[in-house]
């Protein structure tokens, strides 16, 4: 029996639920970095820890018999693939959140009637693009676009998108300046099963215990909380600059400081800090989302990674995004990785496993889905199936994928996971990107206020 467990926000309560159910896992707690926790007294149970978003897919394709994840990710999969082989077994009664369609207070979009009566283009930013599209079709929006995101959707309205489909957790204040137009889904942690496994296998050793143990540990439903003010919006005539959140943020701020550019983070909205360059506005978003946002003219400049720019240009070869400067920090290599147990050391040798029938189909896992897709074409690694992942892809090898297209800094994580590199695709560092054509409300001189100091800092280095 195979079980997929979530990391991240659901991990602590899932861990304690399992313990209460008599399923003692070694290596499944907030401090552990193990991807393969072991259940004492249940040797037949094989368990792996995934990003929550990956779990419905892994269970639906049959790699795992059971999984625990937020219902929102189950519904996100079902919105696009309603015939997915999933059984929703039980609401586990914790990890509540609410998905709501949000706009800013002053957009005159307060009800579904406002939306369906709107004649212009409505853009919806979300980490849940399938649910966003389903909503738009059901609400009969006349014309809409969904901006699929890696995160930070709450930072998008009103100046980068009209609407954002966001997740709120209990007690959490509504994001700055946003109001909920309508609730799309009440989510909580769910036990799910693969349909075929449910129909044909005895899963009772795990299901039975969880069924009888689960209690409503976290009964607090999402309540509306007070709004907090929105930071300064993008105004016409100002350069719109996107900077990265997460682990890219610190090195980016250090580099900017070397160029004499500093942010004023003493503001109510941490995603819209001030900046000491006149005529420039800043928003903090995910680096993965930047090329698409720059292509659409939502930002004039962005500091992202060359890897994400390459992934974007692979998907959209005629995109107007261009690289302006290579910034040289945050360097990683984008590599092809297999398990040490696989007797190949090059893409050619991997291909021969497919051509001589040793391997029936190659499973490729990657966050860089478009680069991975092209890599498979170029190296004639056919037939293959692509498994999109959302970080920590190394966990997929060797059981749930055969090849990984991943970034590495030192290779230490790969070695720890018994993996090896069989090919290097390219090297990637931070870069400044912009559009081939300037937006109609800004000038080259304005852009130069950001580009020139960065260029100067590079030369001095």
């Amino acid at each position, binding site marked *: 029996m195979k079980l997929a467990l979530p990391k991240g926000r659901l991990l602590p309560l899932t861990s304690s639920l399992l313990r209460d159910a008599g399923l003692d896992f070694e290596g499944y707690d907030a401090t552990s970095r193990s991807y393969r926790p072991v259940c004492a007294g249940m040797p037949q149970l094989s368990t792996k820890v995934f990003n929550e978003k990956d779990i419905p897919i892994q269970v639906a394709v049959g790699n795992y018999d059971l999984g625990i994840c937020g219902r929102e990710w189950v519904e996100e999969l079902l919105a696009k693939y309603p015939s997915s082989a999933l059984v929703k077994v039980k609401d586990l009664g914790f990890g509540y959140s609410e998905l709501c369609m949000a706009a800013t207070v002053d957009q005159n979009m307060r009800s*579904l*009637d406002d939306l369906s009566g709107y004649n212009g283009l409505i853009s919806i930013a979300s980490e849940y693009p399938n649910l966003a599209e*389903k909503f738009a*079709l059901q609400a*009969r929006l*006349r014309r809409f*676009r969904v901006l699929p995101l890696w995160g930070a959707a709450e930072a998008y309205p009103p100046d980068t998108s009209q609407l954002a489909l966001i997740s709120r957790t209990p007690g959490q204040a509504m994001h700055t300046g946003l109001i909920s137009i309508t609730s799309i889904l009440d989510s909580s942690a769910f036990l799910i099963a693969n349909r075929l496994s449910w129909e044909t296998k005895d899963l009772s050793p795990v299901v039975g215990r969880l069924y009888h143990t689960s209690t409503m540990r976290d009964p607090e439903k999402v309540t509306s909380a007070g709004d907090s003010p929105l930071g300064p919006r993008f105004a016409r005539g100002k350069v719109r600059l996107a900077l990265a959140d997460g682990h890219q943020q610190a090195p980016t701020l250090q580099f900017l400081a070397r160029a004499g550019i500093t942010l004023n983070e003493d503001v109510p909205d941490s995603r819209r800090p001030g900046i000491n360059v006149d005529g420039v506005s800043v928003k903090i978003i995910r680096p993965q989302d930047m090329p698409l946002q720059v*292509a*659409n003219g939502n930002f004039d400049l962005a500091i992202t990674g060359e890897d994400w720019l390459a992934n974007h240009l692979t*998907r959209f070869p005629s995109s107007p995004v261009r690289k302006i400067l290579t910034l040289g920090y945050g360097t990683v290599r984008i590599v092809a990785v297999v398990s040490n147990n696989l007797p190949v050391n090059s893409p050619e040798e991997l291909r021969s496993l497919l051509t001589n029938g040793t391997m029936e189909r190659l499973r490729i896992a990657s966050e860089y889905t478009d680069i991975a897709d092209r890599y498979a074409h170029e190296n004639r690694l056919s037939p293959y199936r692509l498994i999109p992942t959302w970080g920590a892809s190394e966990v997929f090898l060797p059981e749930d994928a055969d090849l990984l297209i991943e970034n590495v800094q030192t290779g230490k994580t790969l070695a720890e996971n018994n993996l090896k590199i069989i090919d290097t695709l390219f090297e990637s560092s931070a870069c400044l990107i912009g559009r081939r054509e300037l937006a109609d409300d800004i000038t080259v001189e304005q852009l130069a206020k950001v580009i020139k100091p960065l260029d100067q800092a590079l030369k001095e280095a």
Partner: protein
Amino acid sequence: MEIEKCKGSRDLLPGDMVRFRRIEDVFRKACLDWGYGEVRTPTLEYLHLFTSVGTLTPSMLSRTYSFLDWDGWSGERIVLRPEATIAAARLYIENLSDLSPAKLFYIENVFRFDESGTRSRERWQCGAEVLGSAKTLADIEMIMLSMDVLRKLGIIDVELHLSHAGLIRALLTALGLSAHEQVRVFDQILDEDHSVIEKLIGDNPQFTEALDLFFRAKGKSAGFLQNLQALLSKSFPVPGIEDSIAEFTHLAERLSEFDCKYVIDIASGRGFEYYTGIIFRLHCGDQKVGGGGRYNDLIPLLGGGNVPASGFGLQMDKIMEMTDIPPDERYRVLVQCRTDSAKAERLCFETAADLRRRGYIADIDHDGTGTACKWTISVEGDVDHPVYRLMDQAANVVVEAGSCSAICEQLQEAKANEASIT
């Protein structure tokens, strides 16, 4: 690795294609004879063409194949054409809006996801549209043209079911449904969800009898519509129903006049949300083979001005199952080369070309395993003095000749003898 076709798709084999082409030929000829011009819209269209209220129902939209193009960074999705009328309306607005009326027809495939696995996700349809005519005569023409095509294809047991979108909408309004609910309920009726009618009746017990007769009784003449109107005016007044009843009655009377039998079945309004007036369905046994209706609001909704329209579509996949393969009246002859030389092969091709000019199907045998034919002509002997042999099915040599034209004439003679014996 097993090679197989994509799930939910269908291969058309030579026998299928003969049926397919026959339907196409009959439909195309009929439309041209009725004064229609052929068009073809691209397979790819923007999704937003199909998303507004009054175009496709959400349940249909959820089954479209939509994706981002290679230059789709803006998020603008494109679809594999899920439906042909809206695309034809777009074509009209973009290219032919100065024509009124425009009478157009097309033979196109549409793509819709089907979970059941019993239907192909790619379906072919023959459709015709009259754009720019508000007359009931245009609706009658749509019905008569579609039935003419089916009759010419040998499908005669066709049952014509009639409904009226305006009538259904007026009733939903009278029941006090909000604009949003009206759209939802109308969509469910169009998607043939009969539970919604049960629910409507259940929710309005004071009108049970009237609603039951409205949705469940069936009529065969214009008189039935008058009965409905009389019933409703007494028990459940429906404001604004008069125009729809008058239009429907006018059409029913005309059809009766043309000896065209029909069934008035209000709940049979399966179709598209864009219908505003008459809706018709064509049944053959338990199969729906086609349908159409009036859609006066679609072109205004797409920004093409106040252009009323009416149209229909025939489902080729269904009709193919009902039509026989017509006998191929052309004679097939196998041509064999029995001398291995370039010149002999050239003679062989020349003989085949001559046969084709004379109206035969000439099938060149590559290695002695060619399809068995009633007659075979072989080219053999010395290439400078070739011998042409005409053989019958049992490989008996019937006659020999020294030239291509002579053997072709011998064949014609043999064929004539055969005909006279029969």
